[in-house]
């Protein structure tokens, strides 16, 4: 395929899946500047890897792999992240949804707790919230479906405990 055509195809695919990248950025970066940097880094890595994309898996599966791998590689240096985590950085803005004050507080707690999960748990949680099947999650993360179910239950329990303690 001609370079220009390849670029056009890539641009179109990224525009179609931009939201997925935003969500990964929101999950792994706490501040607006960091999120923008991560977005750019993910797009660069996607472009580098695009030459090898043969369509053997769904585009969204492939995109999640690159985005999560990039985010994990980058977030290794951002250990301050856990302390500074801002719930407002999540794609679901509290103000977007009409909740009672109590519900909003609970929601805040839940966001804070998600921010304290480790990189792998964040990836599993995000894919779960995205309603991805365990089969697709397994294709993205490389963990067996059975292990993923066990991990998901543990994460839910962990979040429950963290929300209670906060």
């Amino acid at each position, binding site marked *: 395929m001609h370079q220009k055509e390849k*670029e056009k195809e890539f641009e179109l695919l990224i525009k179609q899946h931009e939201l997925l990248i*935003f969500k990964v950025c929101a999950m792994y970066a706490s501040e607006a500047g960091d999120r923008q940097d991560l977005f750019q880094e993910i797009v660069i890595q996607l472009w580098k890897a695009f030459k090898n*994309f043969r369509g053997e898996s769904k585009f969204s599966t492939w995109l999640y792999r690159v985005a999560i791998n990039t985010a994990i590689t980058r977030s290794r240096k951002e250990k301050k992240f856990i302390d500074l985590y801002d719930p407002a950085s999540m794609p679901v*803005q509290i103000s*977007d949804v009409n909740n009672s004050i109590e519900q909003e507080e609970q929601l805040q707690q839940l966001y804070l707790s998600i921010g304290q999960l480790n990189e792998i748990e964040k990836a599993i949680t995000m894919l*779960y919230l995205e309603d991805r099947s365990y089969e697709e999650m397994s294709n993205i993360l*490389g963990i067996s479906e059975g292990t993923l179910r066990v991990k998901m239950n543990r994460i839910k329990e962990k979040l429950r405990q963290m929300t209670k303690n906060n």
Partner: protein
Amino acid sequence: MELDDLKEQWKRSTENIKPSNNNIMQLIQNKSTGPLEKLKQRFKKPMVLLPLVVSMLIINLSRRHDIFSDGLFWFYIGICLVVISYFFYSYRMVSKMQVMDEMVKANLEKQVQTLENSIKKRIVFIRVMAVLFIVLMEILMYYQQEPSFAKWYAQPLLLRLSCYIFLVVLFYFFTRSVKNKRYTKLITNLKELVSQMQ
């Protein structure tokens, strides 16, 4: 509130997010600012700078006499080639780690393996280089009596040997401290992530 309660809100939220004004084609023209790219640049710079420095040394040497029969010339060339190979090898290792489209677990495992292997090889390489440097210095003395090192060769053998031993020990601790400072924590973190995926 449970995670499942958030699921619905998470789904609904996507309807509120407007498309960005990011110019994708412009973004991909930018250089990566990720940690692996920075590491790659750290290895790339010496590959460019070293031949320049060695060329200057050789030009300086060629003013004195025929360089091809000069042991020092081959000494510079040898050291330069070996050091460039070292940086090239390191550069390639990081390039391999930059492939991001594998499954997350496989990618992390690959990074651990690549890092561990390359660090081991690089440490051995640096230590061998220190020894090789010493051997070449002494060879130059016996076969050429290189005038640039005349003062050094005039020193008693015991003093030279002590300095060489000091150099080897220094390199040993230097490589160990660089490994601990730069990589041990990183590898431990990566291994921890991999173990969480078992």
